[in-house]
């Protein structure tokens, strides 16, 4: 935690934004992936009911996230990595990349929600709860995937490793997200969502603190 961290993070994010605007094809291809999958899935399952619909939503969202965030740390070649590390504190870099991926994930998620509403209508009873759930889950997913992608960027085969390493770690987040979204659809009789939201935010905080502790240890060369 160095002074001027917020300024650093802001600066890195703005650089990332610049890079994206110059060549947005990576993100747009992930969005296209999302749209294509949703088409296929929602055409196959023409009549979707509660748990199936929500389950499909989360599964598609998860795989799109893996695709988006998995490549975050890899596109830099070794030389650029050296350059960047000398300039920035690794924690700042990580947090900036994580925050930027979070924004990308939110956009992707909104696209998915819109698509789902287009295909099978919306059965949301409590949209506010669903919004909170979605934001918290996306935060957790983005954290885990950024951390794993940072770890995997040192290994030989990166993309497969990101999926393998991250899937067990995201399961509790997905379980909680699934339960909360079913509550927000009015599926359960007795909605006591505050407990699950608390657990979800607890997991997110834990992940955030763990990432901040571990990133400097990973970043070496």
């Amino acid at each position, binding site marked *: 935690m160095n002074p001027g961290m917020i300024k650093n993070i802001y600066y890195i994010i703005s650089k990332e934004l610049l890079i994206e605007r110059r060549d947005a094809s990576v993100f747009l291809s992930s969005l296209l992936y999302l749209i294509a999958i949703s088409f296929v899935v929602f055409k196959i399952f023409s009549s979707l009911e509660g748990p199936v619909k929500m389950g499909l939503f989360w599964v598609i969202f998860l795989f799109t996230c893996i695709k988006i965030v998995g490549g975050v740390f890899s596109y830099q070649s070794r030389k650029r990595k050296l350059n960047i590390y000398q300039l920035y504190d690794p924690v700042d870099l990580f947090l900036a990349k994580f925050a930027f991926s979070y924004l990308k994930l939110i956009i992707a998620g909104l696209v998915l929600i819109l698509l789902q509403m287009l295909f099978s209508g919306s059965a949301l009873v409590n949209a506010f709860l669903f919004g909170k759930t979605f934001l918290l889950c996306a935060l957790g997913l983005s954290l885990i995937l950024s*951390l794993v992608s940072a*770890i995997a960027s*040192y*290994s*030989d*085969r990166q993309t497969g*490793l990101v999926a*393998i*390493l991250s*899937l*067990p*770690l995201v*399961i*509790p987040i997905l379980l909680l997200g699934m339960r909360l979204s079913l509550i927000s659809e009015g599926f359960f009789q007795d909605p006591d969502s505050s*407990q699950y939201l608390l*657990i979800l935010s607890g*997991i997110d905080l*834990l992940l955030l603190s*763990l990432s901040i502790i*571990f990133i400097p*240890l*990973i970043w*070496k060369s």
Partner: protein
Amino acid sequence: MAILLMLYVLVAGFLIPLKPGIIEVFNSDARVAEPFTTEVRTYNTRLGQADDIRAWLWLPGDRLIMSKSVSVINDTYLKAEFDTLGNGIDVQSRNGLMASLMIDNSLEGHYFFRNAINIKSAEMAYMRPQVFYGLDEIKTRKQLAFPFQHILYETSRNTYFHVAIWMAMFALLILSCYYSIRYLISKKFEFDIKASSVTTAAIVFGIAGLLTGSMWAKYTWGAFWTNDIKLNMTAIALLVYLAYWILRSSVSDPDTRARLSSVFNLFAFAMLMVLVMVIPRLTDSLHPGNGGNPAFSSYDMDNTMRMVFYPAIVAYFLIGLWMAQLRSRLELISRD
């Protein structure tokens, strides 16, 4: 030494018999001012050989009602008759008063079935006063035997295997975290090797724990795997550690591998704590110890079982350490 402990655990675990107990009480509705008869099936008893068998109704407040007569049908089946239940039994609620049925004799001591009989109240002009006995009337007998648990019966021996394996696994994982932290601080290579071999041993124990758990589940719950949160969470935790293995195998540079796997080990351990300890306690669960079920409290595991249980944990931990040591020595030799 670990082998000796294991042998002791195995022998004691399997050979010590269970205490006698009551499996079924066939008639469980009693009413005040009426005589009460019931038939009882017991377990691991030698009723044919005992002379002075008495049956008791054990009411709250430690008051006992003695039976009028007990007729033994065979070694594990008896019929107990109680005289007219009289005045003095305070049946407060409409649903009746729950009483436990206890049987004692001088050969075996005493055993009981908790809340076996439901005594309902009745209105009667005259009821003779009920004679109560105190608990000191009951014969006891010290024997080396395990407590009798309903539904579990003999499978409670699995405690030595299943629960002990999980506890040893936890201890091994804490040890591996210690080694990972030491590696990250000192960057000495041997700590990384030790950390990885201890984690490997822990993974093996985790798989063994899951297998023993499913066997136990088949006999008590009826299925190998239920949709229970603790089971799912432990499976996920095991998946996380398997991912640790894959991570180790996919990085070729040894320094990077050591660094990354130490960090991932600590990360996985933190997630494990959350998954296995925190989440199951918050939701309903069939597994003992979570979701409202009592864990192994002093009712379930008295000192006879503890005598075998604690050495079992130590034995498994030592075996795990032994496996880890062998493996780490192999690694150290093969890299020189």
